[in-house]
């Protein structure tokens, strides 16, 4: 097998597909069992120090923040993070000191809000290592290869760039066209958490809006925690099966967490809490600020319900719903502050 070029990036979360098949066979039950539990239990049971973890949604859209805060609260360490389309989620997790290594597609940025002071500082001071580079399409195709039980998926991006040189991909000559083609290795994360609009107690999930890459990610995850805005009866799932995005047999835990994406967005439900994100962006400019933020919002509360009270309770949440419905304008303090 002649390989034309080989990226020097660290290959995170790859397994021989046969090894992964045996893992699935032994660990993923096909039985309909009630998987409801608390977030605290799910995190303590399903996420271990040193795990390669990935978050669903889109970095600050439909993100399982309750799981993320709980990872911090339980002081998980040495995680390897999929910096897939990582925005707020990755920033907080890295800043909190839970992460040693990251593979970066989009990370260290808050999109329109600018760069991420906290996680950038972790990298720039050597506390977090970027062990591989990739692109957004490349990362989701890592999950596609995983979902398909394959060692790799071919792709025509990355070629010719340093992104490829620092990736874990390989380039071969395509035996059909004779042209160079990139082979992107599968990813099988140890632990994944995905937040959805609706799920039943077995783990069957419905998602509103774009599914982003959660179809693929849910299926290649070795352990999957689902948090849901709302628990629904399984009859509701079975009455509209073409709305199911995630089938129960890939799910390991189901936790009901209303407003569980705060301060991130939940499409068709509530908007970003830009004031809270601005507070984070301001505080995360220093290690002390990060500590202050975490003390205030994570360590001083028992769970996500306690956190919601602290950030503004029902009145705030209702306002975020109104903004999502275009009934109130969005405010962006992080923007005003810079001007």
């Amino acid at each position, binding site marked *: 097998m002649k390989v034309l070029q080989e990226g020097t990036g660290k290959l995170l979360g790859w397994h021989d597909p046969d090894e992964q098949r045996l893992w699935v066979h032994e660990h993923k039950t096909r039985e309909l069992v009630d998987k409801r539990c608390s977030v605290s239990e799910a995190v303590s049971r399903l996420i271990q120090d040193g795990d390669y973890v990935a978050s669903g949604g*889109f970095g600050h859209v439909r993100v399982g923040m309750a799981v993320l805060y709980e990872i911090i609260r339980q002081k998980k360490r040495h995680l390897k993070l999929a910096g897939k389309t990582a925005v707020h989620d990755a920033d907080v997790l890295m800043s909190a000191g839970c992460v040693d290594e990251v593979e970066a597609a989009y990370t260290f*940025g808050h999109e329109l809000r600018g760069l991420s002071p906290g996680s950038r500082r972790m990298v720039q001071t050597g506390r977090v290592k970027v062990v591989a*580079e990739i692109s957004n399409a490349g990362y989701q195709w890592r999950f596609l290869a995983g979902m398909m039980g394959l060692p790799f998926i071919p792709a*025509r*991006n990355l*070629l010719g760039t340093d*992104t490829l040189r620092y990736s874990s991909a390989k380039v071969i000559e395509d035996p059909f066209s004779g042209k160079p083609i990139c082979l992107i290795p599968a990813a099988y994360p140890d632990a994944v958490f995905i937040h959805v609009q609706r799920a039943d107690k077995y783990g069957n999930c419905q998602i509103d809006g*774009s599914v982003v890459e959660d179809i693929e990610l849910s299926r290649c995850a070795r352990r999957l925690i689902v948090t849901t805005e709302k628990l629904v009866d399984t009859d509701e799932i079975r009455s509209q099966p073409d709305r199911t995005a995630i089938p129960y047999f890939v799910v390991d835990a189901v936790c009901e967490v209303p407003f569980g994406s705060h301060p991130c967005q939940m499409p068709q439900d509530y908007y970003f809490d830009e004031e809270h994100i601005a507070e984070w962006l301001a505080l995360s400019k220093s290690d002390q600020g990060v500590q202050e933020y975490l003390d205030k919002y994570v360590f001083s509360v028992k769970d996500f319900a306690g956190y919601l009270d602290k950030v503004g309770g029902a009145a705030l949440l209702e306002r975020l719903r109104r903004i999502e419905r275009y009934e109130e304008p969005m405010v962006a303090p992080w923007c005003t502050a810079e001007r």
Partner: protein
Amino acid sequence: MGSTSQDPRYTPTELLACVASGFLEDGCSVFVGTGLPLIATMLAQRTHAPGLLIFFEAGSFGPQLKALPISVGDSRTLHRAISASSMHDLMSISQAGFVDYGFLGGAQMDSRGNINTTVIGDHALPKARLPGSGGANDVASFAHRTLIIMRQSERSFVGKLDFLTTPGHLDGPGGRQRAGLPVGDGPYRVVTQLAVYDFDEGTKRLRLHSLHPGVDVAAVQKNSGFSILVPERVAVSPAPTAEQLRLLREVIDPAGIVIGK
């Protein structure tokens, strides 16, 4: 030393957005990120290109945007979209050739239109860590043509990138093909606060295309770390119209989130 006299009726950012929007033709498709590319795209959809087919990487096909999204995954990208699908679907059809224009920003660009958004300094312990490729490498690999919109300076137009995140013309003519990238034109236009550029066919080096009103060639060269080709005739970019400015300020970005910067 070069003139960049500014018309008081509009800001450099507003000019940038208006000039860039002009490159998006009606009935074409554009794969767009947040920030200035999005502002320019929204402006095009509300002026000369109502049938513009907009793609956002999280899975939005063909929205008719009402309010400025914060994120390319924001539900606002789905306003009156024809499809809310997945990143796999969108990246796949992009790779298959359905994207006319990829619309990108960048931190550093070289004379071949290659872009760096990964690191400033050493990769292992960078002076400045940037977000990485995001969808930029994908868009620039898959789109038939890439539009780049960025602020130019000696620090952003560089002779050598600290990191080649996203492919432009790579090492010159034939470079993309040799690397195995999909057939396409690669970088097509670069729009900055000073001018519009294209690429010389024979060398694939950055070439001045039009100067913005009040800007001269010396200013363009001065604000670049590499030498820019200057053809015999250089046009002048159109100034923003009153309607364009009204749309930008009152409709597209009333909070001044992007154009206020």
